[in-house]
């Protein structure tokens, strides 16, 4: 089986002040065969180059949306990107089959702890519930949405936590690239990094 071509679409509006994503990005850049694409660097003025983005999507098998989870959603540039790039009759619609069969992975960091995302927590909804728009977007485009890679409680992360998270992220991407992830097992999990050790057997 050939290596899966991975495209990481990274979005962070204030990367200069990031602690966690700085390390995650370094982990992505360290992987061979993974394309890293910084959306805020490419389109700081939100002037997304639709053709270029579509060509990038066509050239890859797995799309990773990596960003901090702001206000239960993506940073605004990701929404802009979705609005512009996923065109009718290209990504969806009768003739919109360009993305069929590709996979989509959401890789996000949330400041609050895991316990806060649930009926008993202050955020009430689970992250998967909050990701509903993305779930349906993938559905409409014929993309298979994998369980998300979620880092909870990053506000409380110390240097060791960050290093551990970056290491896990890097190993996950490498395994996905090489087809070493037990996807059937993964599909049953609430998040793909719940027990990465078992998954990457």
């Amino acid at each position, binding site marked *: 089986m050939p290596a899966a071509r991975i495209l990481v679409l990274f979005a962070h*509006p*204030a990367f200069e*002040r990031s602690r966690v994503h700085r390390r995650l990005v370094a982990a992505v850049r360290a992987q061979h065969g993974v394309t890293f694409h910084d959306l805020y660097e490419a389109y*700081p003025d939100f002037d997304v180059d639709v053709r270029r983005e579509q060509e990038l999507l066509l050239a890859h098998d797995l799309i990773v949306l990596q960003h901090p989870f702001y206000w239960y959603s993506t940073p605004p540039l990701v929404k802009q990107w979705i609005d512009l790039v996923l065109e009718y009759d290209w990504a969806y619609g009768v003739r919109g089959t360009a993305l069929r069969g590709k996979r989509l992975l959401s890789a996000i960091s949330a400041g609050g702890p895991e316990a806060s995302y649930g009926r008993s927590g202050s955020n009430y909804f689970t992250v998967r519930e909050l990701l509903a728009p993305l779930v349906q977007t993938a559905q409409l485009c014929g993309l298979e949405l994998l369980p998300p890679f979620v880092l909870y*409680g990053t506000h409380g*992360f*110390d240097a060791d936590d960050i290093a551990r998270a970056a290491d896990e992220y890097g190993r996950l991407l490498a395994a996905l690239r090489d087809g070493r992830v037990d996807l059937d097992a993964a599909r049953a999990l609430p998040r793909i990094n719940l027990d990465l050790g078992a998954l990457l057997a």
Partner: protein
Amino acid sequence: MGERDFFYQAFVYLTAAVVSVPIARRLGLGSVLGYLVAGVAIGPFGLGLVGTEGQDVLHFAEFGVVMMLFVIGLELQPAMLWQMRGALLGVGGLQVAATALVLGFAAVALGIEWRAAVAIGLILSLSSTAIVLQSLTEKGLLRTEAGERSFAVLLFQDIAVIPMLAVLPLLAISSPTSVALASEHAGSFVAQLPAWERALVTTGAVAAIAVAGQFLVRPLFRFIARSGVREVFTAAALLIVIAIALAMRSVGLSPALGTFLGGVVLANSEYRHQLESDVEPFKGLLLGLFFIAVGASIDFALAGAHAGAVTALVLGLVAAKFAVLFALGRSTRMSPDQGLLFAFALAQGGEFCFVLFSFAAQNGVLDGATANLLVATVALSMAATPFLLLANERLIQPRFGCPEAPERQPDVIRDDQNAVILAGFGAFGSVVGRFLRANGIRTTVLDLDTDQVDLMRRLGIEVYYGDASREDLLRSAGAAHAQLLIVSVGGLENTQRVIRTAKEHFPNLRVFARAHTRMEAYDVLEAGADGVYRASLDTSLRAGVDAMRALGFPAHQSLRAAQYFRRYDEREWRALADVRHDDSVFQTRARESVQHLERLLAAEFHGIERPDQSDWDSDALRASATRPEES
């Protein structure tokens, strides 16, 4: 140059130039007059620092004229000459013919033999390229209608010198050899030849320069350019000019003419710009020297002895030339003020007159005494030119309103239903216009730059010639029902005038105006503009953003820094508008605002303090997180 050595001479001339030219400029008299006065001052009739050498210096300084003509020639590509053929032959040809006719008849009336009269008429029809171009350039009048016409006429005259040199020997009254033997050019073999052969030699020399320029000089330059030694190229440029001058002189022809031709031949070569910039500094200096020499060589003794005759000749010459030129200008639809400028500018004898008069004397066309008298007349008429231009500028033109603007009738505007009027279609206005047009918004464009208007027309863009500070023109451009006027005319005062007119007569029209500096922007604001656009603000910030990115800052951070900076800068600029007339307060506040800005930017960069927002700042959240940790 006598027993006095070169350094002494150079010292005297340079001192005279350095002292008198800046003073003349300061007094608004122009550098040409400064040089001339300097020449008179150091000449035999002034301080006597340079004596009879005046004449010698004139010869040496003719080299300045030679260089000037070389440079003018360089600027004349054949294609451009062809394009100017109408103006050249029309105005230029008519001027030379009519002036020669009038002055020739005047000479006959004064009892001069007809052939000599023809020679005098032809020679005196020439004007001084050196003085006119220098004066008009200094006054910034070269681009006006009168300036361009003057240039065309001067060009035609310079070219006309060639056939004149060929024709003059044919007009000889006495046997040329007897006169020529006595003259300084006795050595040149041409003098020995019969008249028709001399005409042939002249034509041949001209042809030789054309051929040599084409087939000899260009390979030579290619060879030199490959050597890569910059100053050798300069040396080669000077060498060419001198070689042509020497060659021409050896056959008894005008060096100035030869180099002019040489310049034209090289105008199409790839070395044109290089040659121009190499020769330029020498040209300027030697031209100055030439003007000094003209001043120094004015023979006040002769003029004094024949005071009445010389005065009458100078007045007659200037009056006759002025009359012909003015009539010519008016008959070709020049407005009165441009016609006056045109006529005053060219109403003198030219530097070629010196050459041609001595040539005519050598060839026995004129007798020496007449030639000398005429040379003095020409020199005085040249000296009078700056005064005439000054009188025109200060005393006569003010009666014609705006003296420097070319009086072109405003265009009739057909396109008057657009929502946007653009006043000024230069670098700024044309981008605004193109942008709006690209988005389907049509604009009515007014501009005062004739070249720009004509260029845009040729490109198929509808641009109207007209002064947007005039109420009637704004009205005919549709200002009464347009929504927006965008002003980017040249000059602060013009901008203010346009805004005031618009605001006074069309209060419903919103006015956006471009300003160059912060201070200018205040003036534009006070004139009543609704939107003020500092021309360099956005581009500087874009360069700033790119600089930050080049240094490794994230693109989005850089962009937001610029957005923030811009917003802050605009706000502060507005805030200072009210107090700016109180100087001391303004200084303090301006300084304060700079400090404030620096502080804010420091905060922006270090994330210490966000003045008006705390975007994506998780510090506070982190601080209250369940596991507060250092990061």
